């Protein structure tokens, strides 16, 4: 679609994009990002004995650790993805979403899901212990025992319904488009199907039907698919959409795009069990997961080659064009994290680094270093277009970029380096305290790296606020995706 020359009869931006919902999703996403970072900070200070709030039930670092991961996945990433999809899907297929009222209903419903998750994890156990009527409930009001799926069991069905509505709302315009689709649309279609199936599988099967080792296998699939089949395809779909627009040239090789998508689609879902190597899960399944993981690394290499070949010759844009820099920084981290993954999934590495902070460093590099950087890049690109004004401060944008990316680099490197230390402390059979004491300097550095990342976001928030004030002062028009086409001489927004 993207390389098709615009025709006069094509619908205009004003008929396609509901701008207020994009803004609403982005602002909500950033609010959740701040909440998640504060939750991470609480846990980080606890580890180095700097937590002044230790011993307060509602601020228990354990509960807030689950807030940290769940809010970043379902609060920040999901909201930011939905905002970016409301911009890019209609412009990609030249049709508005199925129903604008449905879009707003989903937005509200999803925030209800998030608030319930927050409320359940933080307040659930307390309420249930203190109110007799709630104590008798046959289920827990608090967190569910599934990593990345701690959303309480009682909110899971609503969350699943929300995911179905999201798929319907975006698949509506996609289904009515004829002929072969552009790369982004492949990733989006697959992501809508996979996210729904993954959520259903991970939250219901190990809770109601399976126990023990087979539940562990499903749990592994869920942890992995949530990153691989929800976050990754949406992220790549958006990058395939925005990078050619920003660089004003097509993706280097369509063939490699095909290899990348189909390779990822086949191998990624087969990886899950690599989270539980050396468990009682049958060994042949563990070997299968390891081999598929290494295959994913090969596929990822083709995608990264494709993107770096695309920017070849336009390298200066990395300096001058900030969104391009965000995207390509994220891609470097993606390459690193996948390379790391291909190593750490081997049994040799697992024996040493499983259960250590190596994995925590890896997780931060994926979730923040890749997908959050991409989404922050998209926001950097879109806010001025949504509000039709320049950024309030280019300098603050640079601070945001450097504090986020360097902060993340320090945090990830620090934790990944700590992993082998912990692994060797344990393997040498020294007392447990030795590994905890030995981790202290690394954990302290991690607190400061996290504070740098948080400071970067504060720069961004202030910049957004001032940009919004400026756009309000200028009184700019808003596109809701339902207007008539403007007169022909008014060019649509780039």
């Amino acid at each position, binding site marked *: 679609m993207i390389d098709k020359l615009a025709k006069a009869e094509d619908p205009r931006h004003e008929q396609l994009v509901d701008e207020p919902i994009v803004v609403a999703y982005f602002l909500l996403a950033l609010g959740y990002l701040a909440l998640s970072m504060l939750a991470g900070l609480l846990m980080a200070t606890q580890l180095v*004995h700097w937590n002044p709030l230790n011993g307060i039930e509602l601020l228990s670092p354990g509960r807030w650790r689950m807030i940290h991961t769940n809010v970043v996945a379902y609060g920040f990433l999901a909201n930011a993805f939905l905002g970016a999809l409301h911009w890019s899907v209609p412009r990609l297929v030249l049709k508005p979403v199925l129903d604008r009222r449905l879009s707003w209903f989903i937005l509200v419903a999803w925030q209800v899901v998030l608030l319930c998750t927050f409320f359940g994890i933080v307040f659930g*156990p307390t309420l249930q212990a203190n109110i007799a009527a709630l104590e008798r409930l046959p289920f827990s009001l608090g967190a569910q025992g599934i990593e990345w799926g701690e959303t309480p069991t009682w909110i899971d069905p609503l969350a699943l319904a929300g995911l179905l509505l999201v798929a319907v709302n975006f698949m509506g315009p996609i289904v009515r488009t004829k002929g072969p689709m552009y790369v982004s649309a492949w990733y989006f279609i*697959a992501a809508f199907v996979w996210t729904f199936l993954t959520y259903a599988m991970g939250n219901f099967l190990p809770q109601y039907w399976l*126990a023990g080792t087979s539940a562990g296998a499903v749990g592994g699939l869920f942890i992995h698919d949530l990153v691989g089949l929800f976050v990754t395809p949406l992220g790549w779909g958006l990058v395939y959409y925005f990078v050619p627009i920003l660089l004003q040239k097509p993706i280097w090789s369509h063939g490699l795009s095909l290899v990348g998508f189909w390779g990822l689609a086949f191998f990624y879902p087969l990886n*899950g069990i690599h989270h539980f190597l050396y468990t009682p899960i049958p060994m042949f399944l563990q070997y299968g997961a390891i081999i598929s993981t290494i295959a994913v690394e090969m596929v990822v290499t083709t995608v990264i080659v494709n993107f770096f070949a695309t920017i070849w010759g336009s390298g200066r844009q990395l300096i001058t064009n900030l969104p391009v820099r965000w995207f390509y920084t994220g891609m470097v981290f993606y390459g690193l994290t996948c390379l790391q993954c291909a190593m750490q999934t081997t049994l040799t590495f697992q024996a040493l680094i499983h259960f250590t902070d190596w994995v925590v460093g890896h997780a931060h590099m994926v979730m923040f270093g890749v997908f959050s950087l991409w989404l922050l890049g998209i926001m950097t690109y879109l806010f001025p277009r949504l509000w039709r004004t320049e950024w309030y401060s280019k300098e603050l944008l640079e601070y945001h970029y450097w504090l986020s990316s360097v902060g993340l680099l320090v945090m990830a490197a620090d934790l990944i380096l700590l992993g082998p230390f912990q*692994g060797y402390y344990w393997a040498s059979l020294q007392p447990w305290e030795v590994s905890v004491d030995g981790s202290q300097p690394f954990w302290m550095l991690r607190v400061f790296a996290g504070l740098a990342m948080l400071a970067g976001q504060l720069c961004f928030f202030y910049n957004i606020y001032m940009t919004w004030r400026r756009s309000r002062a200028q009184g700019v028009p808003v596109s809701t995706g339902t207007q008539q086409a403007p007169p022909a001489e008014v060019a649509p927004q780039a």
Partner: protein
Amino acid sequence: MFESKSGVFLIAGLGFFAFAFLSNALVPALMYRDLPEKTTAQLVEENSNLMYQFENLANRYPEQFEKYYGEVTEEKCAEALELGRRTYVSEACWHCHSQFVRPVSREEDRWGPVSRTEEYQNVLQRPVMFGTRRIGPDLSREGGRRGNDWHAVHFFQPTMVSTGSPMPAYPWFFDGSPDKPNKRGIALITYVQWLGSWLESYPYYEDFKPIPLPEEIKESIEKEAEESQES
């Protein structure tokens, strides 16, 4: 086909997901379908290790136990186990403590026997509590290694019995002081004492001695000590 809506939807979206699900989730589920999943009542039944600990809690904290559980019965013990697991999950204990012993990295020497599938075929492992991170030690063989008093004080304020521990304090498992565990406190201690209670190697805590260090490690430690004395 590779660029069309239906191709992506049917082959990649549904097909590949289903293939992965069949091979990675259904295969283990079918392999273990003949292993019966035990109920909590079955786990408590004839588990003298666990009942010993539960009775010990009743003796140590008679008023608190009477108030929250009444008598020492298998039903009450099952109730405490279930609440204990619920608390273990909702307080995120399992994000810092794993529950499986691997056959590598000398874990057998540190924790005890390597984990086996049968150990996990019960409702208290639904969803399974393998865990993915060890900030604190593995707990799958923790039961019986320490007394109930130790656990009570440790939950109240970990640093009182474990210097330098980064574990948060859980004063809300108590009615004001470490000798007054409340319903959740008694439940969580019961749950921790249950872990490993099905094994032959379950220790009586006053007799518990850590597994002796392997010879070559002992030798190397002695050698190091000698060398440091010499220098």
